[in-house]
């Protein structure tokens, strides 16, 4: 048997426990990578952005060899370079190496590199690494799963919000933020109540009016600073609304003592144009003036 055969074997075994079956059954319906953002078009009247730099030329064969070598630093560098390469063989090399096992430090880099150019079939390997016993590759895998439109992967991300390791929870929060996984709201609220710094950003990313209301109800439960940070980030979202929901968030911030609430309101004022006039802005302005003016 050749090493390639073993890699296939490894991938088969690595995708076991139902995943192998899943791969077979989904051969024609592979998990889709999340849509990549379209290249930004320059706004009318503005100068065109600089042309993106050409991808670096990577010796895929050499990098693939280094990736599975004994030198861990070289392997990590090789993983990173393979992630930058557009050659599908680079992606394949990453997938093969991950499927047959890498040192945790190398695996973490390889997982990030793999997700740099999402492809069908990646999610199955990422999901395996989302259960790795070492926190570093686990966090990398969870974070990477945020770039894939894969139901199982999303479930893993939501589950990882309860990981014992703070790094992994943070990565899960970032993945929720990236993939806008709304069903994560309830667990994120629980994390917020526990004072977990992984909570504010993803909550703000997925919050609708109802979730914002539930966040506001955490007053007295969640730490004031985190609560203010969360509500402030919700207010910053241009797509958050409608206006009455914004007003409620502003009023919730008004109830939070300490400088973080004032900072959040001030940030909102800075980020929001005066016109058209908004009640939420008016109330925020009044509250800031009241707090900073000593109530006058």
């Amino acid at each position, binding site marked *: *048997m050749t090493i390639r055969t*073993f890699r296939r*074997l*490894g991938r088969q*075994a*690595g*995708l*076991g*426990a*139902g*995943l*192998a079956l899943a791969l077979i059954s989904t051969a024609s319906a592979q998990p889709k990578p999340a849509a990549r953002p379209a290249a930004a078009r320059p706004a009318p009247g503005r100068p065109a952005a600089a042309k993106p730099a050409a991808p670096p030329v990577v010796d895929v064969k050499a990098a693939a060899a280094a990736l*599975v*070598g*004994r030198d861990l630093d070289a392997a990590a560098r090789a993983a990173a370079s393979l992630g930058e390469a557009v050659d599908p063989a680079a992606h394949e090399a990453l997938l093969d190496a991950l*499927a*047959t*096992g*890498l*040192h*945790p430090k*190398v*695996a973490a880099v390889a997982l990030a590199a793999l997700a740099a150019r999402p492809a069908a079939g990646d999610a199955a390997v990422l999901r*395996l*690494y989302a*259960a*790795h*016993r*070492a*926190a570093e590759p*686990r966090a990398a895998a969870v974070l990477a799963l945020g770039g894939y439109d894969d139901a199982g992967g999303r479930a893993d991300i939501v*589950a990882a*919000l*309860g*990981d*014992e*390791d703070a790094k992994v*929870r943070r990565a899960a929060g970032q993945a929720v933020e990236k993939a806008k996984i709304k069903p994560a709201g309830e*667990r994120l609220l*629980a*994390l917020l109540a*526990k004072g977990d710094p992984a909570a504010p950003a993803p909550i703000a990313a997925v919050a609708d009016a109802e979730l914002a209301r539930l966040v506001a109800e955490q007053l007295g439960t969640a730490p004031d600073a985190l609560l203010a940070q969360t509500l402030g980030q919700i207010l910053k979202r241009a797509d958050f609304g409608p206006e009455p929901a914004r007003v409620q968030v502003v009023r919730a911030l008004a109830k939070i003592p300490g400088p973080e609430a004032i900072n959040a309101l001030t940030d909102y004022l800075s980020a929001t144009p005066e016109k058209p006039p908004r009640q939420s802005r008016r109330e925020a302005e009044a509250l800031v003036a009241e707090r900073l003016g000593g109530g006058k």
Partner: protein
Amino acid sequence: MIRAGLRLLLPVAVAASLAACGGAAVFGLTSDDNNRDTLSRALAMRQLPASPAPRNATGKPMLFGVASGKPRKLVAYDLAAGAVRWTVDADVQSRIAVGGDFVVAREGSDLVARAIADGKIRWKQPIPGTFVGAAADAERAYVVYQEPAQKRPVWWLIAYGAGGEELWRHDAPGPLGAPAAQNGLVLSPFLTQWLSLLDGRTGAQLTRIRGIDAEIAFVRVTSDAAFFGSTGGIFRLDDHAASGRRATSTFAAATLPKQLARATYGASAFDPVQASYSAADRTRVLWRAAPTGDGFHFAKDEIAVHWFRFVFGLSPGGELRWAYSHPRVELVASEHAGSVIATASAAGEVVALDPATGAVRWTGKIDLGGGQLLGATFDADGWAPQGDKAERTGTVAALLAIARDRDARFEPIKEMAVSALSTLPGPDVTRDLLSIVTDARTPAKLRQTVADVLVGRKDPAGLPVLTAALAVRADHVTGAAPKAVDVVARAVAALDGVELDPAARKAAVDALVGQLTSAATDAKDLPAVVDALAAIGGGEERGPLGSFLLLHRCDPEVAAQSAVIKAVIGALVLRGGPTERELVRFVAEDARTEAAVATQARQILSQTR
């Protein structure tokens, strides 16, 4: 054996010294011991009832108890009516002996007889020495006390008539035990070696039995028979007892579980502590035996052991048949009354148990006026409670209650209960055992015992319960954490080769895979998880185990967990097919594999060619 021999020799040595002093008329060394004819005649004097019945003249089953307080109270409780008949202030300091229309006990420094009808004092006599014990029959009361030592100690046995008048007395130069009385016969143990049978009316010694190869430490009379013996066993008082030997007497001994071995067949006649109600009454073998016939047969081939709050039904060979756990408070008194086992708790609850099943046949409550029941005498032979409750609290529930009991005195008993549970099938038992293992308050030794039992059960009906325990995933958000994964997994692994419900097996495999792939699963639990997967996986385990090996073969931390790696590789090689063997060979040979993992792989491969 040596200690038992010394115990037997000790009274002989004392008796020898007594002989040198001259002895006494009744209690001495020179007597016509072990005479079968005189024994037969003496026993024939008794007028025994055709069927078991209370000894008191009312014919009603009664309990006479002592309640705490200042002063103490003497309570007469009618078991048939479930009602207190009377309560009187009485400084009772001994067991209560039940006569025909009176009860007698030591009150303060007097022997006091009270009317059964109302508890009023009939008569009292001073006890001018150290009280040893009292007994009563229909008409008379008997007391043994030790006279304060002057030159040499003297023990007295005195009989009193219905009006408290002294009928006769005998002195003894050596220890007399607490007497027993039965229908005109007085049974008086002497020096733990002899049992004198005296005519209660005249005090004349009718005959005497000498224990040749056994002590005589207790005497027990029921309404229809009399017995004597020691911790070594029970002699029926019949013609055969004249041999003085176990082999040729009507003799038996029950084999008790080692945890209950301290229980005794009756109150010691020579222990001054047991002259009154004591903790010894809470560790008692409860038994009945046929009054006549060949050989000694425990009634219905069953015995019970009262052990503080618990009662265990046993075969004479010591096999547990049922268990009863009394809630909260200790049982302070118990008696095998024939058709029921009667018990009374410190709180005054009276419970009648079915001797065959342990089912609660009857319950009652004694109003103790705020006091506690210190002890009690049952006069309830033949009591068959009306309206049989036949409430089956269940042996499983009782055993579990015992196993979970917080009282540190009961650790050996808890282990016995757990061992008994291991023989009982069903998911409920598994669930309850698991709850003991996962309870943080369970003492370590008991947890280990329960864990071993759980693993040893091999009960497929319990698999869903084990699966439910394994299905719990550690979660920082909810605070959930699987408990006792190692024990549960071992219990699952023990089902290797047992026919399982396919759905239950699949669910168990999924739960095990969940633990295998959870980073929160403790590394020390993983070998058991892997073993369990290998045991019941039916091939489904190969994928997850292969994934685990490939993913972690380059991880130094996992590689350091040699037991985990060994279990995974072993399962793949021993339970897998050629594909798994090739996978392990790849792991063994690939340069990236941590050395410890590669070594394990090579070793297992080489051992399984």
